[in-house]
């Protein structure tokens, strides 16, 4: 089954933790996972040494999950394409729409 996730909150919320755990469980059961990240959530995708979630995202990408984020959310936040974790798509709401229509279950956190 295809699991899509939308994450719009940043490290101020437990959402990133819950999404990570659910997505990991879904992958473990053989489901496919795609994530779209926007709003404050885009800060969580920045490649910096103190990013507590970086290893988790990398492991998802390694396990075949796709992660895209919203360029329009990144821009005013100073998150440029080059500072994202490798493998994360600097995308748009078009990518979001594709993920929504791809998903069998679409889970929104934010």
């Amino acid at each position: 089954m295809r699991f899509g996730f939308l994450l719009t909150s940043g490290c101020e919320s437990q959402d990133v933790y819950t999404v990570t755990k659910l997505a990991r469980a879904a992958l473990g059961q053989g489901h496919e996972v795609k994530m779209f990240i926007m709003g404050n959530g885009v800060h969580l995708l920045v490649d910096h040494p103190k990013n507590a979630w970086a290893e988790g995202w990398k492991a998802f990408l390694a396990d075949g999950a796709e992660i895209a984020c919203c360029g329009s959310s990144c821009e005013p936040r100073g998150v440029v394409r080059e500072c994202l974790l490798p493998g994360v798509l600097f995308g748009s709401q078009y990518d979001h729409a594709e993920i929504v229509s791809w998903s069998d279950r679409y889970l929104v956190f934010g």
Partner: protein
Amino acid sequence: MKSLHVIRDPNERLGLEIASRESGQGRVSLLLIQDAVLTRLTLDGLAVYALADDLEARGVKGHARSVDYDEAVRLMVDHDKVVVW
């Protein structure tokens, strides 16, 4: 048609209103996660689950059936529609 409503906020109203309305038309389940596990929420005729980690983190037992992430994902597969509030 079976639907699963995932409730995160102890003050969520609209999600419960819709769950309650739907329960007249089909099977409806609730999955309490994050701070919503703090509430002693019950709706007539609805199965209520709660994420084990979230119960443990908040030191509550609650009346809901405790599920881990694997079981939560299986619930999402078993229901035809999932809404996270």
